[in-house]
């Protein structure tokens, strides 16, 4: 579904991503691990098409179409939806109005808001005065309304308290998998996700199929997400960096074998 090919990205004149390649297959949930500042958010912002993230070289393909230079709304129209880490405040625009526009009138806003404990926020201005956890729930509410085929989630669990994370995790799972937990069904549903996680906590709620580790603006490693997480928890990201330096061909092989 999504192919990132040798992507080099610059932000404010500084190269942040260097020659990144990865792929997210239709129906697959892919997680992106990596320490702070490794370029994970930059990658997601670039895939969504936000200005300020300048592609110097490489391509982004969605279902075979080159979307590298499409405007943000064209990407949304083609089925990409993103949960931002720090979305802007939009004073004067009520959350319910944005949700309604995002859903094109197709969903029961009151119902999904209730499921996410967001009923009282519908009349509030988008993100204004929201806590970290409230922002996450608001983003998931908007995404549920939008119902994209490819979800880009930037640290869905960060800043969320233990009670809310249950609900949030359940909603993310529902978004990705629908009512079924069967991997085969998921694949047929056509939904895919690229999820940034710093702690890996989201894996308690969401089945992931593949994991990538980003360090210093490059993909350091890829593989089974749970195994990767276990390694990271045991050895830390330093080990990934060291490992990558020792085996520069590992990543290339991994990507090639997926193709």
């Amino acid at each position: 579904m999504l192919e990132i090919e040798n992507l080099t990205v610059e932000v404010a004149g500084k190269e942040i991503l260097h020659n990144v390649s990865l792929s997210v297959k239709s129906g697959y949930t892919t997680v992106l691990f990596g320490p702070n500042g490794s370029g994970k958010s930059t990658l997601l912002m670039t895939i969504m098409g936000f200005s300020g993230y300048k592609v110097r070289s490489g391509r982004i393909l969605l279902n075979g179409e080159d979307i590298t230079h499409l405007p943000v709304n064209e990407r949304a129209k083609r089925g990409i939806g993103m949960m931002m880490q720090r979305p802007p405040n939009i004073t004067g625009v009520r959350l319910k109005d944005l949700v309604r526009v995002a859903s094109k009138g197709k969903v029961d806003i009151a119902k999904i808001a209730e499921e996410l404990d967001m009923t009282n926020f519908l009349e509030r201005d988008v993100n204004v005065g929201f806590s970290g956890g409230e922002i996450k729930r608001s983003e998931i509410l908007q995404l549920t309304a939008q119902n994209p085929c490819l979800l880009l989630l930037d640290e869905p669990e960060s800043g969320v308290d233990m009670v809310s994370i249950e609900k949030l995790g359940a909603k993310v799972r529902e978004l990705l998998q629908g009512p079924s937990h069967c991997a085969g069904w998921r694949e047929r549903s056509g939904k895919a996700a690229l999820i940034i996680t710093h702690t890996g906590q989201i894996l308690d709620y969401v089945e992931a199929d593949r994991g990538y580790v980003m360090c210093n603006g490059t993909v350091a490693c890829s593989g089974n997400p749970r195994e990767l997480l276990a390694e990271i928890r045991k050895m830390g990201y330093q080990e990934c960096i060291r490992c990558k330096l020792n085996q520069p061909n590992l990543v290339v092989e991994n990507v090639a074998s997926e193709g």
Partner: protein
Amino acid sequence: MASDEERRAREALRKAARFGDDIDLEAYSEGSRELAPVGSLEELPEDTKTTLLDTGIVPSGKGRAGNFLLMDNSVVHSAVMGEGVELMPLSQALKVHDWLKDYVWKAVRPDTDKYTAETYLENADGYFIRALPGAKVRMPVQTCLLLKDRNTKQYVHNVLIAEEGSELEVVTGCTTSKGVEKGLHLGISEFFLRKSSKLTFTMIHNWSEVIGVRPRTDVVMDEGATYVNNYVALKPVRSIQTYPTAHMNGPDGVCRFNSVAVAHPGSVLDLGSRAILNAPGCRAELISRTITTGGTVIARGQLVGNSAGIKAHLECKGLILSEKGVQIAIPELEARVPDVEMTHEAAVGKIAQDQVEYLMSRGLNEEDAVGMIVRGFLDVGIRGIPEHLKAEIDRTLQETDVRRG
């Protein structure tokens, strides 16, 4: 023998106003004082009724406590439907209430500038509204000031008294008949809010491209009075200069000015609001949201703190949607005693790109995203506006061309 007041007014006939372009009063002919009265607003021609509706005036008068219509310089309709309120032409009220002379021209000085001076000397008529002591007037009184003939100048002199403990809402629509491009509106409004009274006053300006507008409004507030002023100007106009001022003379008064305006290409809007906090415990909030799509907006605001324990905030925010547009924000804070809390916040600039792209990432195209942000931006300025007017203003906002030039 000319009174002292009259003499000063005569001397002020050439006195330019402190702000705004100096308009040549000789270039307009005086509007008729002899237009035929109408029995009800429903009798007006269809296009006039539509014009009224656009400014929040309901021709049927349904849900209103009173109707008043000034056309050019003639009061053509004045009717009271509700209880607890008086409404009549000021000229008539002066005959009915002997004491009223102690109010007229006491809030606004006739020699303020040439516009007040001429209005004074022309002995202008307008509305007299009075909420009786303790009366909670359930429905709003609606007044409309309509410029009917081209090249006309309209003089208006309004006096409003909210007696002790009363509550009242007034909606004023100021507009022009279709086809009237050139005209001048001079409007003097003197509001007196007695102890513990509450007035919500909403003014909607729907002028047209070549109209000059010079309202002069002063509000005198006694102890515990509450004044809410909503001002909406979304349509093109040549030039508006206004600086309504609340004089908060009694303790614990509350006032709030909300203003939203759009400066279209060719429009110059010089809009201010001022609160003078003269007594302890007074609170004031002045909020303005302005947009330029090619015109000039000067958003002024002034808070004067003359008494201890007052609290006041001033906020002017402006969006520039066109290369040709100009936004000038001039917030002023003036404190004359130490124990005051006065703040201001001013910001002008373009729409934040991250906001536009955020909405685009939810599937909106750029134009719709900008429209949504702009309407939201203005919405903050009209949140205090009465519910019954919201739908109308929302509709106007939807129609307002806010595309980035």
